[in-house]
């Protein structure tokens, strides 16, 4: 007789194979449908939850398709939000996009052609930019949804929405109101290629070949007299930017080091004398040693133009290289600017926004035959200047060094003094501490994952200069202040600016360009429109995203939870970007940080740890992974990776993850199949010894996993779960339970006990994996009769 029919063998319709690429899209479509909206269900299910978790989305830029880094970022956010959700908390997630800024404006410019763009009214250009952003928001939104990322996709935030622009402007007014918005002429990073000032976050360092030149500046008579010499003598300066020599107004000496005069009539720092001899810059022996203070405030002569160059002392002068006598042009350097302020040096700045010499060259006579230089690009004038230096050019060579480049145009940038708007870091106004101090204090209250984040952000806040927030472009939120023509002062009156904000809400910030001053000015303002002019700069886009806490969390436009947010989560590059700008704007306005936790992740690299690039052919596109392996595999990759460092991804790695997924799926399938005819779960206290053992063991594991998950250490939690599944659960328990499950009578207590233990383990495992493998667990729910 065949007894096989009498055995109670495991039975389930839950498929062994996930067929993820084929099946995922339909389930995701259901989650994002109006009738079965997963996000709406999540909100409804936790309506009365005592704890809430607000993740405030850092906006990706609304340009281009998403890459694997975006996928990592959004999936990690999704996993963390759902971790809080499945642990019973109320969650909110309003995704958003950063819409303003140069890349889109450049794209529009490229499509139109520069001339055509210049001929169009600003609001038309801005409409084209909006269109471009809108198009890519729609593309990226679908791409993010196809990763199973759940959030309020029907009402996401966009920094270009009219109400949003108004709120960014209000955040700016808040900074002004606290006395922290200042205007001054100062050298800033300037991208001549983009024709705009750049923030530190927009600067990248690349290798560049430059001149290394030593130039002699002859001492004036007064200086010679102070040195008690009658023969001619020259100070040697060293520079890598010959084009800044016309703007030279001084030479800085170290206040501490000794300087020497050589027998061939040159002045250099004593510690560098031997080196300069070796380099063949000079040939003479030391004939006199002195402190530079004797020369302070006397003059040398600029050999290019015969203008006076003031001899001054500055602690920025080092003995690392050069001559110890530093060419000082306050229009083209930060140290130069600062030391120039102390000595009252003139800020000579003869370079226009395109990086070409302007009329200043002629007006101040900065070069011989000045007209021939006006309109010429500075980088193309180096050789002519070297020629003009003649015998005063003591040595000239070329070398390669790390130099700041514009992140968008990839052209080398310059320092250029212009009138710019700054958020002041060190002003203590009206009894408030300085912004730097307040921001540092607020940082101390933030929890960082990983902990080292506080050091990165902290040292940036501690050392950063004032924040230059003005840009000379079209696609952004205007620094919409009136300036009194008579006094030159900007007007920050609450009544005036709030009226402008209200207009922005209705018409968008385009109104700043479209409307006349009289139309923008509130009634009974006390100002005469005739006597006002508009500030025409726009805001650094980092100010836009730095204001999202106000425009999203504080606003009633979004169901986004409360301000401050529980967590900001982005790639570790955002220490210098969004985390910092958000902290500064929020602290300047309200005196508090906009977040209580910051979590950062690393970047995606290939399996050798190399950056992905099209030329290397190692790019992994999220849509390809979805099609070939399934989104669940990508999500499990995120869940099992140590994300605080760089994350490796490749076909090999994805195959390993697929294998892990297969094991998890099979274990779940076996559990479902075994409990398939169980009607009620037996109380644990009535269970058999083996079942109590596996549950006790599982409790230990699950509690530890929960601890890791609550600290966002998913890879550690998953390692424990996978180990438990392989060793104790599959390796022992499922094996030793087979006999009683298959051979005992259906309602035999031993059998029911084992089934009950398996049901409990399945239930807990499912809930623990639900944040990551949401799709798979949802699929299982259709086959799991008991839970």
């Amino acid at each position: 007789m065949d007894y096989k029919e009498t055995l109670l063998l495991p039975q389930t319709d839950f498929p062994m194979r996930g067929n993820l690429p084929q099946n995922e899209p339909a389930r995701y479509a259901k989650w994002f449908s109006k009738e079965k909206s997963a996000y709406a269900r999540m909100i409804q299910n936790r309506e009365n939850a005592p704890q809430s978790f607000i993740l405030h989305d850092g906006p990706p830029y609304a340009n281009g398709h998403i890459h694997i880094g975006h996928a990592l970022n959004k999936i990690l956010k999704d996993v963390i939000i759902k971790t809080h959700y499945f642990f019973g908390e109320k969650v909110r997630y309003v995704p958003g996009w950063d819409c303003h800024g140069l890349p889109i404006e450049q794209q529009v410019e490229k499509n139109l052609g520069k001339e055509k763009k210049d001929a169009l009214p600003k609001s038309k250009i801005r409409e084209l930019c909006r269109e471009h952003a809108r198009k890519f928001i729609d593309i990226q939104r679908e791409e993010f949804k196809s990763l199973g990322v759940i959030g309020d996709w029907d009402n996401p935030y966009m920094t270009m929405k009219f109400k949003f622009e108004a709120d960014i402007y209000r955040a700016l007014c808040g900074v002004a109101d606290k006395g922290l918005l200042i205007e001054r002429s100062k050298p800033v990073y300037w991208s001549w290629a983009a024709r705009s000032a750049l923030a530190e976050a927009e600067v990248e360092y690349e290798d560049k070949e430059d001149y290394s030149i030593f130039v002699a500046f002859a001492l004036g008579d007064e200086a010679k007299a102070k040195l008690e010499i009658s023969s001619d003598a020259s100070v040697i300066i060293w520079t890598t930017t010959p084009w800044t020599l016309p703007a030279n107004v001084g030479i800085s000496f170290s206040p501490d080091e000794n300087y020497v005069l050589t027998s061939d009539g040159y002045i250099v720092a004593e510690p560098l004398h031997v080196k300069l001899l070796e380099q063949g810059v000079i040939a003479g022996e030391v004939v006199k040693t002195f402190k530079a203070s004797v020369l302070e405030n006397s003059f040398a002569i600029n050999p290019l133009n015969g203008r006076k160059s003031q001899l001054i002392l500055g602690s920025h002068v080092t003995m690392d290289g050069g001559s110890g006598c530093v060419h000082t042009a306050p229009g083209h350097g930060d140290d130069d600017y600062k030391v120039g302020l102390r000595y009252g040096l003139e800020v000579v700045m003869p370079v226009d926004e395109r990086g070409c010499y302007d009329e200043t060259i002629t007006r101040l006579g900065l070069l011989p035959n000045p007209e021939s230089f006006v309109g010429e690009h500075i980088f193309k004038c180096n050789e002519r200047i070297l020629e003009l230096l003649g015998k005063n050019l003591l040595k000239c060579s070329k070398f390669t060094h790390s130099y700041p480049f514009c992140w968008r145009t990839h052209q080398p940038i310059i320092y250029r003094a212009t009138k710019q708007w700054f958020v002041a870091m060190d002003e203590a106004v009206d009894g408030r501490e300085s912004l730097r101090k307040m921001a540092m204090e607020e940082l101390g209250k933030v929890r960082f994952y990983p902990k080292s984040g506080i050091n990165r952000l902290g040292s940036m806040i501690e050392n950063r200069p004032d924040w230059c927030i003005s840009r000379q472009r079209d696609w952004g939120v205007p620094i919409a202040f009136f300036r009194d023509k008579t006094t030159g002062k900007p007007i920050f009156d609450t009544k005036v600016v709030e009226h402008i904000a209200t207009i922005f809400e209705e018409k968008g910030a385009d109104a700043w360009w479209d409307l006349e001053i009289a139309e923008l000015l509130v009634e009974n303002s006390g100002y005469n429109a005739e006597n006002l002019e508009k500030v025409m700069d726009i805001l650094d886009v980092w100010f836009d995203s730095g204001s999202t806490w106000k425009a999203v969390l504080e606003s009633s436009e979004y169901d986004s939870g409360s301000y401050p947010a529980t967590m900001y989560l982005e790639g570790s590059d955002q220490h210098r970007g969004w985390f910092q700008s958000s902290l500064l704007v929020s602290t300047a306005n309200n005196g508090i940080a906009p977040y209580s936790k910051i979590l950062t992740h690393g970047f995606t690299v290939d399996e050798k740890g190399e950056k992905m690039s099209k030329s290397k052919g190692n790019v992994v596109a999220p849509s390809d992974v979805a099609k070939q392996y399934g989104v669940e595999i990508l999500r499990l990759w995120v869940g099992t990776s140590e994300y605080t460092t760089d994350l490796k991804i490749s076909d090999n790695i994805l195959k390993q993850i697929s294998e892990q997924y297969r094991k998890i799926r099979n274990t779940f399938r076996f559990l479902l199949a075994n409990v398939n005819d169980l009607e009620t779960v037996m109380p644990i206290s009535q269970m058999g010894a083996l079942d109590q053992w596996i549950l006790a063991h599982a409790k230990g594991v699950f509690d530890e996993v929960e601890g890791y998950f609550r600290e966002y250490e998913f890879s550690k939690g998953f390692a424990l779960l996978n180990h438990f599944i392989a060793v104790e659960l599959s390796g022992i328990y499922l094996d030793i339970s087979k006999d009683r499950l298959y051979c005992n009578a259906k309602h035999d207590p031993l059998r029911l006990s084992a089934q009950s233990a398996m049901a409990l383990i399945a239930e807990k495992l499912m809930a623990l994996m639900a944040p990551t493998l949401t799709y798979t667990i949802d699929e299982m729910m259709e086959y799991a009769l008991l839970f």
Partner: protein
Amino acid sequence: MKKESVFDVVYSALPMIESNFDEAYMVEAREKFFEIVDNLKKEKVIKSTLELVLQTKSPKISALEKVDAEDWFTVSKVIEHDEAGEMGVFEVAGDSFKILKASKCKCPRCWKYRSKSEEELCHRCNEALHG
């Protein structure tokens, strides 16, 4: 309440569970047992652990239900008294274990060696089918 979808799930920790099961001891016993069994299988002396009986006076094993002890090692019987047919011995924490060849017949339903003849069901299977 039957949950409609994954979004109706809430995690709650398992309650505290009392278990006298000495996991370390039992796992060590199982590993040592399977070390010997793997060799027996390799040498084609046995095909399945169900062909075996385990003899021990270990108090940890005695404290268990018989069936739990059997299933832990997936053998047909765990006994205290000595019998003939020794196939291997091992020790755990000073307790000795002896692996013996099962003397009863293979139940045609569950394949445990607990039947009086190859044609007869063992007691458990008989109960399961006709009880």
